[in-house]
């Protein structure tokens, strides 16, 4: 009895490892004896390099270059605005695949001007980066720290807390109007979800190809959806007995979390765009973001309007939710401003989108109570569309 079990186990292991073993042998043979003359590359080497980040300090420009091609790249010369300029490169001028390098150039750049940087490889291949508006890149100091913290507070925390102030009004809504409110929330969420997705996709374009941005997006998105679904499934038996108000509270937090992640991504994008001079953060733009994000506060409180009486310390919960949704903007803005990487932007925006879609689906599911067609009442559809339109309309305030 035991021996057969052992044999079975052995079989299992052998059957699992055999293909791996064969693959290793194949690779060995391939590398050792050559690919039988077929796959020898006859085209010239494809050099690919990517300028990931440009930092400006007085009379000085620093570039971060990433080799995302299959071949080593040697940077032979550097052009700034169509003129050759000497440069300094840490360690070697040759970057191996997936290697990152830093290039220092002393150049009399002009504040507020367009700057174009071109790298020329040994083989004459050029890699370009254009900066629309050159400005001094923030370094670690209190002034910029303050700037980005305030930016995060204005864009994230204040609007969400303002949105929460609608609670007294919203809780008075009854019956159809409550359903209208829930639908409106779903509308807001769906719009926000698509917004986060499209921002994430937009950032993929600014990633080196080797990073496979769409992969990061898919992983982030599904990670959020599946994690949240698994958590709610595993805790189902626990929450069931606690009643509807408990469910509402969880929704509130989930929405806040989803919006928080979205705002983290948004903060990253704003912070970095500000730091690299892609946008000028005028007060109008900040105000636009504020008004736009007030709707996020509404989305958080909507599911709680019926449950508030059963939940103790309700005000505390509201504040916590507001902070959960808003504070990530500060973190995002700080990180984006000082050490931005588009990878983080893509990832967090995708997670945010996943979380938002997940909670939107949860609310719909709850509204349907098993009968899916029943949710398509005129009230609900109008509420949903109103939610979309509010987001769309306030979006005009953010013409960055």
């Amino acid at each position, binding site marked *: 009895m035991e021996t057969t079990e052992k044999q079975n186990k052995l079989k299992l292991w052998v059957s699992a490892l055999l293909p791996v073993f064969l693959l290793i042998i194949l690779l060995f043979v391939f590398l050792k004896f050559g690919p039988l003359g077929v796959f020898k590359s006859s085209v*010239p080497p494809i050099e690919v390099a990517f300028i990931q980040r440009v930092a400006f*300090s*007085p*009379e*000085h420009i*620093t570039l971060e270059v990433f080799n995302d091609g299959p071949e080593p790249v*040697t940077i*032979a*010369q*550097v*052009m700034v605005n*169509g*003129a*050759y*300029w*000497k*440069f300094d490169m*840490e360690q070697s*001028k040759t970057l191996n695949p997936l290697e990152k390098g*830093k290039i*220092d*150039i*002393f*150049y*009399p750049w002009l*504040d507020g001007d367009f700057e174009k940087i*071109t790298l*020329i*490889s*040994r*083989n*004459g*291949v*050029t890699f370009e980066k254009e900066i629309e508006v050159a400005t*001094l890149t923030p*370094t*670690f*100091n*209190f*002034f*910029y720290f303050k700037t980005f913290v305030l930016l995060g507070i204005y864009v994230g925390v204040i609007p969400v807390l303002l949105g929460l102030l609608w609670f007294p009004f919203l809780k008075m809504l009854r019956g159809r109007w409550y359903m209208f409110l829930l639908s409106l929330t779903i509308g807001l969420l769906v719009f926000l979800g698509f917004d986060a997705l499209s921002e994430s996709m937009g950032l993929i374009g600014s990633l080196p190809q080797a990073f496979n941005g769409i992969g990061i997006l898919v992983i982030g998105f599904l990670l959020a959806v599946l994690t949240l679904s698994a958590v709610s499934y595993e805790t189902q038996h626990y929450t069931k007995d*606690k009643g509807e108000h*408990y469910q509402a*509270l969880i929704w509130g*937090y989930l929405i806040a*979390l989803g919006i928080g992640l979205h705002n983290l991504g948004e903060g990253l994008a704003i912070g970095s765009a500000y730091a690299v001079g892609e946008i000028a953060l005028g007060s109008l733009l900040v105000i636009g973001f504020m008004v736009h994000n007030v709707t996020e506060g509404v989305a958080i409180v909507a599911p709680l309007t019926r449950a508030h009486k*059963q*939940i*103790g*310390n309700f005000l505390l*919960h509201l504040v*916590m939710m507001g902070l*959960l949704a808003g504070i*990530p903007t500060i*973190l995002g803005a700080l*990180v984006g401003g*000082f*050490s931005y990487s588009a990878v*983080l932007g893509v990832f967090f925006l995708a997670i945010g989108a996943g979380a938002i879609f997940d909670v939107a689906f949860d609310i719909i599911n709850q509204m349907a109570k098993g009968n899916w067609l029943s949710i398509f009442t005129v009230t609900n559809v109008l509420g949903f569309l109103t939610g979309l339109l509010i987001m769309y309309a306030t979006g005009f305030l953010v013409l960055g």
Partner: protein
Amino acid sequence: MLETQKAIQKKIRLPLLALFLIVGFLLFRLFMPDNAAAQESPEYQKLKQIAKDYCSDPTSTDSRCLKSFEDLKNSGNSKSSHFQKLQATAQEQFGIIGEYTSEDFDAMQYLTTWNFNNLPQEERKKLYKESRLPDGKTLREYWIFAEDKEIEIAPGVFFPAWTYNGQVPAPTIRATEGDRIRIHFTNKGTKPHTMHFHGIHNASMDGAMTEDFVYPGKSFTYEFEAEPFGVHLFHCHSVPIKQHISKGLYGAYIVDPKNDTRIKPDRELVMVMNAFDTNFDEENEVYAVNSKAFYYALNPIKVKKDELIRIYLINIVEFDPINSFHLHATFFDEYRTGTRLEPNAYTDIVSMVQGERSIIDVRFKYSGMYMFHAHVSEFTELGWMGFFEVVE
């Protein structure tokens, strides 16, 4: 009821706290190591040094430093010595970096080389032969071959060129008016090539029609009389022409007048203004005179004060409609195309379209370093700039 509420509160508080902690921890874990590294990196130290250098008070904090920088910029006042030091550093960095490593084309030697006069007698005989025809005329025979070759056009930047005799520009062909020129041309390259001369010749020697194309491995002999006198050029005329020219198939062809009444020059220099499109987007990345960007800036051309210098200047730049030659601190006689013995202009700048050329006669009145460059500043800063070093 109250009990349940409190229970819920308690239960939810802990996970919430944990959530905040986890998110906070993750974020710091993700971003802090980078920043710590950035603070210690040589680049950060360098930036710090720059900030310090710039600030009038070296003990001031970074933010005050940057603020005073902005104040300066806003007031347009750049008299601060620290800022001037930075500006000077940036100004000094203009130009290319590194040194030319390939030895096979000597741009300095090219200036004074024609009819392979740079080669030892034995080697020269294989490529150039001078003899007398029965009618008393001089016959000049050349052996020219087309060849694909990688050439260095800026330090560390290599261009897959098509060449005549392995060099860009091609070896200079020079004859006297009325001489017989015979060119034994062999195509050792990979595309059909020709040699199309600017000059007066029979249509069958024009090297421009499809039937004139010399295919890889094939040969052709061009023969014609050297006329008219002046500074001319030859280039490949296979199609696509702009490709065959921009890849490097061109050279200087000089015909000296039989009876030259001008003063004999003390020094003669051949200069071909050319450019290279290294990424093949039909825009040039590198401009030069005689192929190597900034070569004569790194290695100034040495001449003597008051001596007569004759420059044979040719423009072959592809993709840009105009090019020019400007010489500092002196004026010169310009003989357009070199076909008359009287100068057309006394000037310090010559503008040329592709294929245009001129003879320039110049003397330097003072010793010192004198810049010459295209007065298309764009070309200048992309390599077309050099110096004359005038000595007593």
